[in-house]
């Protein structure tokens, strides 16, 4: 699927951030627990060519773990998923994103370090758009530069969710787009 085709449904929704306040929005029923549908093909590297070198094309994934729990809490959408193993005895990662146009700051432990994730959300029709920004390390870009990730969560059916994750390239780097499918856990 082309990047352009994937971005088309996302871009108009960004305008929704400037639209009606959260209380006036009708949210699509994405709340619940979702499990990523992993096809066998998704677990195998696809070898493409770059120059004369083969290149195993893995996937960046959605950027979120599975199972994924989504809920509405007032003017915020809440997303949780496990990052560490059960043995590690750590709480799942917890994110809140403002639905009223405000950007909520999340401080989470991903890997061996704390990460700051700023996020806001909006909904249009059956799609929820969540845009997050994360600081870029100083060795990559000057202070203040943020990496942006856009996620469009669309209900294809009551129990089927499509998520398009768009990682915007920093400093002229290419943008990466990944589409994943999720099934509602009953």
């Amino acid at each position, binding site marked *: 699927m082309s990047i352009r085709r994937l971005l088309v449904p996302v871009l108009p929704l960004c305008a929704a951030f400037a639209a009606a306040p959260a209380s006036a929005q009708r949210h699509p029923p994405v709340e619940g627990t979702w499990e990523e549908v*992993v096809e066998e093909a*998704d*677990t*195998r*590297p696809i*070898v493409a060519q*770059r*120059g*004369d*070198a*083969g*290149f*195993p*094309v*893995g*996937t*960046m*994934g959605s*950027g*979120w773990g599975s199972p994924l729990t989504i809920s509405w809490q007032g003017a915020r959408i809440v997303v949780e998923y496990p990052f560490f193993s059960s043995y590690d005895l750590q709480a799942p990662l917890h994110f809140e994103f403002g639905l009223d146009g405000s950007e909520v700051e999340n401080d989470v432990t*991903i*890997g*061996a*370090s704390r*990460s700051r*994730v700023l996020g806001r959300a909006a909904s249009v029709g059956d799609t929820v758009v969540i845009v997050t920004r*994360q600081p*870029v*390390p100083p*060795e*990559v*870009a000057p202070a203040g530069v943020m*990496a*942006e*990730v856009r996620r469009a969560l669309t209900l294809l059916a009551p129990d089927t969710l499509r998520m398009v994750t768009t*990682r*915007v*390239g*920093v*400093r*002229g*780097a*290419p*943008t*990466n787009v990944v589409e994943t499918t999720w099934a509602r856990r009953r």
Partner: protein
Amino acid sequence: MSRRTIVAAVALVAALAVPAGAPGQTAPDRPNVVLMFPDNLGWGEVGAYGSVRGVPTPNIDSIAAQGMRLDNFNVEFSCTVSRSALLTGRYAIRAGAAQPTGITLWEVTIAEGLGSIGYSTALFGKWHLGGSNWIEHRTPIDQGFEEWYGIPNTSNEAQWTTTPSLNRNPADTSYIWEQKSGGSPRKVKVFDLQSRATLDRESALRGVDFMERSVGAGKPFFLYLPMTQVHFPTLAHPDFAGKTGAGDLGDAMADVDYNVGIILEALTRLGVDRNTLVLWCTDNGPEGRRPWRGSAGPWRGFYNSVMEGGIRTPCVIRWPARIPRGRSSSEIVSEMDLFPTIAAAAGAPEIVPADRPIDGIDVLPFLEGKRSTSGRESVLYFTGRQVRAVKWRDWKFHYSFQPEPRVSEPPLMRLFNLRADPHEDSDVKDANPWAIGLFDQLLAEFASSTDRFPNVPSGAPDPYTPTRRD
């Protein structure tokens, strides 16, 4: 006109073009170069790096103490490709290096370069760059060495006499060979479990003889000592077998260190230790096959993977005349950097070919303490014909995560910060969405260079004529 003659002629023309009084070194003051390159020897076996088994390695440690210990020395993931990258200064994928076929004679090695400016050159130990048909025209002699003694391929062939089922062609027997420039390869003896245990000692002693002859002739020398330890079967010299209490691997490590000592002692005895560049580094991470599994120290993985354990290896370097003593660094350095660095040390950067991509850089100013950084920020890692991971500064991006050979874990891509997570345990790509774009750019630069200079196809016959797309 042979290729070696052409290389020598080019070097001669370049030398004549240097104006009188220009900086550079003349034959009498060119440093000798000793490059020791043990096999499948992981970071965790060496005293200077923490020796998990506690086997003393005073001779290797002395090189670090008298020079520099590199803590982020990067190699290719397996024997043949690593030797190709070491000797050519190029990613092995560019040379089409592969175990069954080796590399083409179009590749220019350190030995050819140094030989072209008057060095005596020799290899004692393991070659593994000639492929299965090495004897016809891909011996070390064909790649710039004036003499060699050892095994053309790899150490596990020593098992063929006792376990023929391990040999794909049971009619074959593996031998230890020797050859001198102008002559044909000659079988010396069967390579079996007995001769496997003593080969490195023989190589070290032959190395001493070679150095004595070179010094006597007043010629600078390049001694390449690709030791066969501690590759499986890890069976040490009888002097050390069963002596360390640390198993076969511990015994073999003591054996390696002893042979290093033989070389260092000879340099001192011959009075050339001050102006000899001594490099001791290993071809890839630790042996991964049981019962001789080695240790990668703090790193995860074994050879045949691009985990840090597989591609970050010990490397100590000394050159008393030029490199200050007692330093260590975590700056990224690659085995590919050794060719340009040795060329610079010899005062002859022109021996590094200019008609093809050279991935190595001259890190001599860094080793000399004239520069705080190595000048290298990234390394690409390949397995077979595929890009598998890229290291950039403290970050490492796995395009297809494979913690052990033949093991893949979805969703395949992984990002690690090696300072925060040296064991490559916790994937942080989701906390660093900038990464994929940056690493894609690094790969695109490499791909662009192969568009202009296509890689040599694996198995390409000699003579090889490169194609170039401008």
